[in-house]
């Protein structure tokens, strides 16, 4: 064997050794499951960035529950899509299969170690944020917001042109109805909302709440871990929190809700 071939072989052996190290140090002992999920969690950006998903609902509910432990007056939680499923899921397909969820999986499902920030805002500001979050539908983007179960939104967004080279400004999103715990949002009322720390940064798309006074509600990952641990068996699903262009989307949403 020539020294060149020997070097190539040694390189492949080295890659094998790296895999061995990863399997022993990084995944040798299976972690204990925090909880079992009975439905798949789709964490792909194309999915979580374009509409309501089971994963978005799960994390938003976990954030709302954790925030209420610090501040019982919290009305709801909003979680930006780019916080979710940024990394691949262990299955390498972007979809977590039903089964045990460990703390490593939580780190993969919540891509950044963001904090929960509790901010107070007017109903008008909340509407403005939601309109921006939904305005790009059906195109996926990181600013799509997943609300906790208290919020129900119905919105109309003009269908985008299929032609990629259309530079005409998109018509704004129209909110048909927006309910918090069953009551219509009052534009002048104040709401306490738990959001991810990214959303309060100046670099986020939500300028209305950038740099505003906020209180800490703990870590998003810890919130999800705690939420899972307290329940043990979960069946996250789509339940119609956000319905965009209901005439076109309701059938699919309802089907997913039933299946979920």
């Amino acid at each position, binding site marked *: 064997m020539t020294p*060149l071939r020997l070097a190539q072989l040694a390189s492949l052996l080295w890659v094998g050794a790296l895999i061995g190290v*990863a399997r022993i140090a990084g*995944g040798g002992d299976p972690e204990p499951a925090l909880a079992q999920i009975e439905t798949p969690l789709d964490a792909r950006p194309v999915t979580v960035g374009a509409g309501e998903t089971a994963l978005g609902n799960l994390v938003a509910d976990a954030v709302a529950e954790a925030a209420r432990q610090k501040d019982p007056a919290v009305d709801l939680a909003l979680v930006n899509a780019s916080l979710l499923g940024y990394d691949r899921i262990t299955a390498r397909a972007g979809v977590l299969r039903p089964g045990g969820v460990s703390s490593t999986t939580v780190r993969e499902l919540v891509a950044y170690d963001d904090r929960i920030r509790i901010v107070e805002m007017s109903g008008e500001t909340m509407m403005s944020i939601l309109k921006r979050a939904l305005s790009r539908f059906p195109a996926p983007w990181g600013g799509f917001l997943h609300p906790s179960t208290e919020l129900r939104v119905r919105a109309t967004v003009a269908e985008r042109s299929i032609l990629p080279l259309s530079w005409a400004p998109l018509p704004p999103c129209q909110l048909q109805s927006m309910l918090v715990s069953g009551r219509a949002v009052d534009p002048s009322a104040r709401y306490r909302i738990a959001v991810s720390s990214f959303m309060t940064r100046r670099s986020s798309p939500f300028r209305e709440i950038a740099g505003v006074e906020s209180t800490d509600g703990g870590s998003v990952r810890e919130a999800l871990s705690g939420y899972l641990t307290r329940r043990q068996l979960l069946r996250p699903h789509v339940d119609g929190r956000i319905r965009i262009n209901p005439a076109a989307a309701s059938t699919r949403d309802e089907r997913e809700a039933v299946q979920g």
Partner: protein
Amino acid sequence: MSSITQARLLGLAATMTLGTLTPNWDSYTAIVFALGISHYILSYTYAGSRLRNLAGRRRLWLPSATVLLIGLTIAITPVQGGLYAKLLIYFGLHHVINEGYSSGRSVDALNASGLRGWRIALHSGTYLACTCNDWTLLWVDRSLIWLLLAVVALGFSIALARRSVALRLGQLVDESWFDFGSVLLGVATLNGWLYVDYLDVVLYHFLFWALYPFANLARRDEFQPMRLVAMNAALTTAALLFSALGPFGLTVNLLFTSVFYALSYLHITTSFILSSTNPMWLRRFFEPVQVQRA
């Protein structure tokens, strides 16, 4: 089979094996970053003569400083998505230039600038297609990527066909399988048949450059390739100690990641000055004597 084809096949096989068998994301990131840190340090080790050449030419200090300043500006300019988002684009530029200028170097018929241009365009299109699932590029319309991929694949095919008369069939296959293969990879990713992550492309880049220099090094000294493997293994192991797989676990992960990002920006920026896989005008600019002799 040419040395570049061997390096590419082995690099692809190693990337797929690591990507499939690594148990979780933390481990995968740790391995990719550790290989990256080793790649960056080795690139300076093997660019010693170029660095000395540069240091000895005062008139090159100002343009070198300008390039470094541009790199620093890119690194510190705040954008949505932070260092990661910028690196995805900046690395893409580095990767496609490397791909464009590492192929066909030994075949005169493939050294034409028009073909190189199409090859760079082709790899830009496939890079965009392979990373379009990332948040950073999610806003790019899919139909636009399909259109771009079709145009660059057609342009490259025509440019290659015009030079194919000067090539043997074996040469033609050897010099173009990777380009057409990356188009297929782009199509598979766009269609959702495959899930390619940005880090998969980065890992392939590191592994390819761990293997590609073997043939050149062996011409100088037959034991040089083994020396490179040993140095790569030692540096990767040292870097892994500070990763999530090391004894400190995730406690030093922020430092480990920060070092990787800092070295990434430095490596890509300085590659425009030091690397031989750059456009001729850039090489001529920073290394006038050697290129004229070549």
